[in-house]
């Protein structure tokens, strides 16, 4: 089990390593990335994530226990970024390793759905207003005085 709130970038490869177990044949890793959605203020450039840390870690850990009980997951990860996360960066990783693929898919789906609903994490959008094109500098021609 691995519940984490991180100021640093999350690694899918690290999550996979955390889940790898010779006795578990099905591994599913889900990564949620920040999208460049349009907003009235311009395209999203980043999301600012904030968590109520202790309760968030507790809920993540409780979720993992539930997934192990319900789906027989042998290993799980539930990681979330906090702080500023730029477009294209991974904001959340959840995953489960189970005996077979059906349980692994179901467990991972359950983890991300419950995480979004029950973990005290909030996001604020940071958008960039498109700049108007800069006026071209006008060139003055030297006049011939002759």
């Amino acid at each position, binding site marked *: 089990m691995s519940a984490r709130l991180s100021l640093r970038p999350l690694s899918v490869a690290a999550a996979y390593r955390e889940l790898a177990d010779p006795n578990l044949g099905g591994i599913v890793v889900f990564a*949620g990335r920040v999208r460049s959605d349009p907003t009235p203020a311009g395209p999203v450039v980043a999301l600012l*994530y*904030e*968590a*109520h840390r*202790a*309760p968030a870690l*507790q809920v993540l850990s409780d979720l993992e226990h539930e997934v192990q009980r319900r789906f027989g997951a042998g290993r799980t990860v539930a990681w*979330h970024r906090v702080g500023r996360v730029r477009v294209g960066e991974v*904001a*959340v990783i959840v995953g489960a390793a189970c005996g077979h693929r059906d349980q692994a898919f179901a467990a991972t789906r359950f983890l*991300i759905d419950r*995480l*979004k*609903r*029950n*973990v*005290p*994490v*909030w*996001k*604020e959008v940071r958008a960039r207003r498109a700049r108007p094109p800069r006026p071209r500098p006008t060139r003055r021609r030297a006049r011939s005085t002759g």
Partner: protein
Amino acid sequence: MAATRTRRTPAPGAGLRLRILLFAAARTAVGTRSFEWPVPAQGTTVRELLAQLSEAHPSLSPVLAHSRFFRDGRAVTRRDERVKPGEEFAVHPPYGGG
């Protein structure tokens, strides 16, 4: 004025307070991350506390209607739970992780 109550109204049972923690929309509504709130020695129910906060900060009222609450990191499950002096009472507007 009700809005100044956080700073000026003396606590019933002077010096007994709890800490209110605000997140996301709750913080935006009040304009601060946290503040102290007077509370009697025997504590107050969550229901009473929410009514007092709504009165003092009308802009917080609609946020409270859709929020969950935590006392010292534990989820509040009943509105008749008593919040006691020295505790931390957190307001959690709807979550937005992922």
